[in-house]
């Protein structure tokens, strides 16, 4: 038996896109090693039969539903460990995201299992699953093979695409679990708080994104002026570092814990290009980077890289584009 168990995160009655990707990936790979894909969900009343059954459309045959707190990892570890103990899944698979990392790691400890994180591709080899992950700032790919009864695979964000298959409806199985004492010592006080103005960056064709290299919150004006010069469907986005610093609203954040975008033009101003940022914008059609550090990783995946001072370049670029637009 070589079944694959995935975890599906949900929020306010909606299933997480990266989790659905994990279900699709799990279903495709499980079929190659003679198994089924199952899913675990943990939460309250919004986990209706209908919502759980809908995972069948992505390839899950069974959905194990635990009633418990949402948005915290350790209760999910308890549920998954129990399901695996009773059903003997050979792999646990997670889409990208913070909870997947925490649950996968906790499960590895609990079950003495191997774990690989930041996985970008999974394949079957001799009836087993093999995971590939980039290492050393994405300069090398490392291949993980598992020993023992259980292998844990944690995907990089957006690595697995959610695809509907002709799977119909999943069977819902309620799991009665006694939570570990330490799993109930953390309590969600507030979840999903939005900080700062609500802005729409996902629909923009042109994004001017600002990072720490802008120097100050006030300098975001340079990015806003440039976006305005492009006109039409353009917007300003930001990195996690400047959002956490309070320079720009959370709704504009690109990357692992923010939004994923693929505009026609992504102009990165003062962004070094850490992997956590890259995963949220690497599918953009054209990437232009302006940064004073010639060694910034972003130059390795930009189509046009400009090494120079933003304070000098951005105002002149804004004027030049305005002039073109006016002509």
């Amino acid at each position: 038996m070589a079944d694959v168990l995935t975890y599906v995160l949900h929020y306010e009655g909606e299933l997480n896109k990266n989790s659905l990707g994990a279900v699709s990936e799990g279903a495709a790979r499980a079929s190659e090693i003679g198994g089924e894909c199952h899913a675990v969900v943990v939460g309250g009343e919004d986990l209706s039969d209908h919502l759980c059954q809908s995972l069948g459309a992505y390839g899950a045959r069974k959905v194990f539903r635990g009633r418990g707190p949402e948005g915290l990892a350790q209760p999910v570890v308890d549920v998954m460990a129990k399901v695996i103990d009773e059903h003997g899944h050979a792999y646990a698979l997670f889409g990208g995201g913070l909870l997947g990392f925490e649950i996968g790691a906790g499960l590895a400890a609990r079950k003495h299992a191997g774990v690989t994180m930041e996985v970008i591709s999974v394949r079957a080899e001799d009836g087993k699953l093999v995971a590939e992950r980039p290492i050393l700032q994405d300069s090398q790919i490392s291949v993980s093979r598992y020993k023992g009864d259980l292998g844990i695979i944690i995907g990089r964000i957006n690595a697995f695409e959610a695809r509907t298959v002709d799977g119909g409806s999943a069977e819902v199985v309620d799991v009665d679990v006694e939570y570990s004492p330490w799993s109930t010592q953390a309590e969600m006080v507030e979840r999903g708080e939005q900080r700062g103005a609500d802005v729409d960056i996902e629909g923009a064709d042109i994004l001017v994104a600002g990072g720490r290299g802008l120097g100050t919150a006030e300098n975001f004006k340079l990015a806003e002026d440039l976006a305005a010069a492009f006109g039409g469907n353009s917007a300003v986005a930001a990195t996690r570092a400047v959002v956490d610093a309070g320079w720009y609203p959370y709704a504009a954040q690109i990357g692992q814990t923010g939004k994923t975008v693929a505009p026609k033009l992504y102009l990165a101003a003062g962004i070094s290009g850490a992997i956590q940022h890259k995963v949220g914008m690497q599918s953009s059609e054209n990437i232009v980077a302006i940064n004073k550090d010639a060694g910034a990783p972003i130059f390795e995946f930009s189509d046009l890289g400009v090494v120079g001072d933003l304070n000098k370049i951005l105002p002149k670029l804004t004027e030049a584009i305005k002039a073109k637009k006016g002509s």
Partner: protein
Amino acid sequence: MKICVLVKEVPDAAVEKRIDSSTGRLDRAGEKNLNPYDTHAIEAAMQIREGGAVEVEEIVAVTMGPESAVRALHKAVSLGADRSVHLSDDALAGSDVAATGYALAKAVEKESPDLVLLGQQSDDGECYTIGAVVADHLRMPSLTQVIKMDVADGALRCERQAEYGYDTVQVRLPAVISVGDAINEPRYPSLKAIMGARKKPLEKVAAGEVGIDAGLVGEDGSRVQCGDFHAPEAKPPGRIIEDEDTNETVEQIVAWLEERKLI
């Protein structure tokens, strides 16, 4: 309150990292720096001590690694830790994430801390995961990627960015918390602290001394094997402009954008 801070020596960002093809492990010969994220964890411990909400009796830096890892401990002590523990044993070499977390948990267990802090990621490999492994072995609640933390009444009020926005989570102590770089600005150690670091107590412990089951660590005790290292499919390198004359640079950018019908 007693705080243990898990620290790690990582390759200096300026040193090119490579895999040793004979062992399949990261070649650590050139490494010499304390993981930058760990400096935020030590700073977080110092701010709890200085915050006054709770009395911190001791801050203990703990690392696992070869002989050279002592340097990371010296750095940790220069940043404020009172003493350090170096878990070092040939039996631990080649441990994967799960085995490393288990071994660290055993070393920490002996210290019976009220709080375990660590950096959320390291520059050289395992991201976001060690804290959760350590916590499960210690049977403590845990949270990763924390960017704000206040201690009161035997609990921590933590904030972090999660999938749907900012979450605020109340965590009862004892707990394992990994912190992000937005949590604080680490201080620079004084010259006196750097000079004094070598005189602070440093205890070296072997796997057996903290009750580590040798069958669960090292290469044989690890459940994942990494290999077949290869280069990823490379994207063709983009064009690079060095800005010397800004007017000229801007002209080139505009021309490039026009060619692609982006203006």
